[in-house]
């Protein structure tokens, strides 16, 4: 009797803790079925934290957008200092050749799933500095999801872009797809990092562990 009970107990324990393969298969199935997937997307969309990377003059409107009048924190986004703990990058303003290296390294330090918004007309196609010899188009440095035109765009436009990103996330279920499939596509039109950072010339380590 005693050994019988023990066997049953052991079986139950095995099912819950012991047999990792079975448990993993069961968890994956429930994710694919959709309820947890929807929750993951919903949670990610309401916690899009942008990293503090002020590149150019549109930075004033970002400061105002997260200020008290056009409060963007009600959408769940909190500007946070560290790139390793954020999942949104807002490329605002002109990206020069020196800054492109920084942008690329900050982007690569962020964990997946991550998103990017290009703000202002300088980030679209150069803006008022379209023929300058010192600037780079941001979509050749990092892949971008949402573009906001304007010079500078009003803070209401920035708030609208966060809402559009949330809708895109939920409709295409970007966050849960990354967790399930973890596929990465080829970055074929992106400038390689060595060309962007070649000017530094010093012996600095460019690996960021999320490549």
């Amino acid at each position, binding site marked *: 009797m005693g050994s019988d009970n023990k066997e049953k107990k052991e079986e139950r324990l095995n099912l819950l803790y012991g047999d990792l393969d079975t448990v993993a298969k069961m968890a994956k199935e429930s994710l694919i079925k959709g309820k947890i997937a929807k929750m993951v997307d919903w949670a990610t969309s309401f916690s899009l934290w942008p*990293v*503090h*990377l*002020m*590149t*150019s*003059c549109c*930075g*004033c*409107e970002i*400061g*105002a957008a997260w*200020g*008290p*009048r056009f409060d963007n924190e009600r959408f769940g986004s909190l500007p946070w*200092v560290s*790139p390793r703990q954020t999942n949104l990058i807002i490329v605002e*303003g*002109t990206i*020069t050749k*020196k*800054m492109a290296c*920084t942008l690329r390294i*900050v982007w690569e330090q962020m964990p997946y799933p991550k998103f990017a918004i290009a703000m202002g007309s300088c980030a679209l196609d150069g803006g*008022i*500095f379209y*023929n*300058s*010899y*010192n*600037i780079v188009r941001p979509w050749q440095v990092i892949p971008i999801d949402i573009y906001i035109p304007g*010079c*500078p765009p*009003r803070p209401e436009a920035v708030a609208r872009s966060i809402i559009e990103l949330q809708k895109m996330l939920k409709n295409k279920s970007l966050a849960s797809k990354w967790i399930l499939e973890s596929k990465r596509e080829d970055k074929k039109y992106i400038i390689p990092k060595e060309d962007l950072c070649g000017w530094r010339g010093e012996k600095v*380590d460019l*690996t960021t*562990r999320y490549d």
Partner: protein
Amino acid sequence: MEAGTASSGSGIHLPGMEIAKASKNRYEVMIGPAHPGSGHMRIFVEVDGDIMVKVDPDIGFVHRTMEKLAEGREWIQNIPLFERIAILDACNITLPYVRAVEKLLGIEAPERARYLRTLLCEINRVASHLYGMGIFGVFLGHSTLYMWAFGDREVFIDLAERLTGARLTHTYPVFGGVRRDIPDDFPEDARKATRYMRKRLNEYAKIFLNNPNIRSRLENVGVLTKNQAAELGLVGPNIRASGIRYDVRLNEPYEAYGDVDFEIPVFEEGDSLARAWARVEEVRQSLNIIDQVVTWLEKHPRENFMHEKFWKTAPKLYKDVYEGKISYSPKYRIKLMPIFASLKVPPGKSFARVEAGRGEIVYYVESNGDIFPYRVRVVSPSFRNVIAFKYVMPGHRLMDLPAIYGSFDYFPPAFDR
């Protein structure tokens, strides 16, 4: 204490664990271009223990080559280009360019236009100082100040929007005058704004300037003596906090500053706290100027706000609307004078300077009779303050760097141009 590769127990060598070794006790710290606050510049700091020994700024991360692009665009197209030097202060930054070209053209703006330019300059100065204080709060970790400053700044940006039509990029002064006149209910709103801001300044003093935590971080930190400030050639409230009584509005009055009544606050101590006080006192003086200018504008009739030479070439519809023959409605949208499209400026060289929010900005304009400028040289106030990194910071501890950085009120797009 030996610097070098830290050896973990298992001997794994992880990337990024080497520290650059300059001498036995010295380390080189790089405060990189992505850091919290509005700063995209790199600072190479050599520290000896905790004390900074050598500071070297590495700027150029926002360099957008404005001086070269200006040689390929027409005279009037350069005004929006130069606004992007310091977009918060748009009227102050483009005003010396407009004045320098006006000197070459040999004309002067009429009286009403001068008062209108002064009005926008002072509104921009208040907004710029509030932005500076907000960013100073972010550097010191004082988020209440950031929220208050950005909230109060919206009041003045709203005023500027009623006057010119845009929040930040006004493009208001043009050659010969300004682009449009004030709306009818503007003076009352301006007075409400100045009354509100005067009350708020006392509260700023309570939470920030008289706050014991902030005082212990800012008092006697980054002290700049009078001779040092003159030798380094710094500008703005930074030298007025060190005892030098220099302000372009006082030494070479331009626009309507010769006729209004205001004071220049000068402090003697020269530390970071004095620089913060200098900015707050300047905001108070600007509010006085706004009140006086708005009173003048109310009392005097709406005459020409643009010089005769250019007004003569305006289309008839434009003149009728402004003289009241046709009542204004939005379908008569205000356009720019057609003569500006291919303006030729007579050859010569000229120089103009103006006191912007952060300091003095100078322009050197050279023309050889073409529709494009031959050379425009702009030295923005933050560019003249960069040298303070090298000479003021050494000797302090590393954690004083944000306090000094914030008190100088740098704006990187300004010094990179």
